[in-house]
């Protein structure tokens, strides 16, 4: 797509905002519509558009597969880690209230935020990884 100058410029301008919006959706999840799933997909959209326009090599350079794999695993681990932390804090598995011994509501906020963050990271990494895997094969 080297010849499509407009697309390249617009994409370059747009991608940061896409990612910013994704971040908003991610962090706003416990107050309004939003959350990890949606945010993760929007994150991935940003990456994928970048890869489509500027070429798969540059996307891989920015996000090497090991990093993505680490993202997939790390997100899941964060999710499960919160669950285990609540276990260790004396609640049942994923009982966020137990995360903060003084204020259960605060604990719930913290818990849901971390959980959704884990989900977001995993979803974004998985979607991008799927895209890269397919695109890279086709490219060869």
């Amino acid at each position: 797509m080297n010849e499509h100058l407009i697309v390249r410029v617009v994409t370059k301008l747009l991608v940061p905002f896409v990612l910013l919006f994704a971040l908003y959706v991610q962090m706003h999840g416990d107050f309004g519509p939003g959350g990890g799933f949606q945010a993760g997909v929007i994150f991935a959209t940003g990456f994928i558009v970048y890869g489509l326009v500027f070429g798969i090599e540059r996307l891989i350079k920015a996000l090497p597969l090991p990093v993505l794999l680490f993202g997939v695993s790390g997100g899941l681990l964060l999710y499960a880690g919160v669950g285990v932390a609540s276990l260790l804090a004396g609640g049942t598995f994923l009982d966020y209230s137990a995360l903060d011994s003084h204020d259960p509501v605060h604990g719930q906020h913290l818990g849901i935020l971390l959980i959704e963050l884990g989900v977001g990271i995993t979803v974004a990494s998985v979607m991008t990884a799927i895209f890269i895997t397919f695109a890279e094969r086709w490219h060869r």
Partner: protein
Amino acid sequence: MNLLAHLPALQIVVPLVAAPICAVLFNPRIAQPFAVLVSLVTFAISVGLLNEVLAEGEIVYHMGGWEPPWGIAYVIDPLNALLLCLVSGMAAIVMPAVRLGIGAETTERSRRLFLSLALLALTGMLGIVITGDAFNLYVFLEISSLSSYALIATGNDRRAAPAAFNYLIQGTVGATFILIGIGLLYMMTGTLNMADLAVRIVDLRHTAPIQAALAFILVGAAVKAALFPAHAWMPNAYTYAPSMVSAFFGATATKVGAYIMIRFIFTVFGAEWVFGDMMIGWILVPLGIAAAFAGSLVAIWQTDLKRMLAYSSVAQVGYISAAIGLGNRDGLIAAIVHVFNHGLMKGALFMVMACVILRLGRADITSFRGLGRRMPVTMGCFVVAGLSMIGVPLTVGFVSKWYLVLGAIEAGVWPVAVLVIMSSLLSVIYIGRVIEVAYFAPAPDDARIQEAPALLLVPTLLLTVLCITFGIATDTTVGVAAYAVQFLLGGLP
């Protein structure tokens, strides 16, 4: 903090957390022992849960502290405690041998994520078994299915990919059927908790959606259990998958399908309605018998022995289905015991295939010529597990067959008893055929074949020994099954 109180959660969490960790541990020398450790811990948790259930009765655990109907509950009764032990026990036995076993049978690329996928599949199956929430069951079903499609595709035979694809299509359709059924149940009752469902369904049984839900769920579970005629995915999948995968899934995956069937029929819908008004027994029993004959007959003609074992599984699932369909106490005991016992023997037989493939590179019947002398221990295991498949006394196969025939006679369906026994005679032919080749045909001169390495041989031997142990001391299997039946049938005879 008392970790023991959280065993139900840990049962799922331990393998679930271990899967991504395995993925980021790039060095297989670390990842492999780690996976072994995890599977052993998981098995220990299952045993702990079984003990607790036997001592104190049903365990209910609320995830996240949410009470049903809002939250997900894990409910452990003797039935799923036994299955947890089977699934995690098989994993613990197979896992140490995985690295050696898949070396000859997978593509280089796919080996890296193999352990993660295996642990995910384990998580999924444990989840299906442990959960008391209908939708959660679907989610775990898909977790285990997706990872098993991927695992089957790791085989280095090019036919592995189409086999996995077929399994994916059929498995997804089956799982979606279950999803529809669960949706209908939720629509009518407003709950997903199985215990609540059971209470609320009682007054709604006459409605079409509930009846449709029963049909959808049974068909979906039948696909997962590979019950004839919905078995088409299984032969190819188990033939072209790495033998380790076949051993683990052959022993557990179809059993989990049968578990879904038992759980929904007996816990959610209620046996007296399912077998009384809906006459499901008239579907399950004939299908089961047909499966027993079709599977065994086709198995006799196979030259690829992994495919032969897969068809034999079709037949064995038929016994389980027929046993469920009898709808009486002995039949249900037979079903539960056979789920466990067949897991042991089929696991052992597929492990034998893994040993043979490692040494010879293939497992067709001609490659077995003279193996009785060259790999005596491996073939010894095959003989014992094969005898168990036939149902010779003092092996596990006899115990399940006994209860199945007894159940059929007590249900007053004599032809079923006769047919079950006749079909089991067919297994004499397909097992005997292999034994004949192994011990009577001269070995080809050129190949210098040695006994399989200890790492593979020990799990194989262990499973074989268990085939006999549980064939003699049946307190654990039949005892637990009888206790489970008390839970499932309530006060019924």
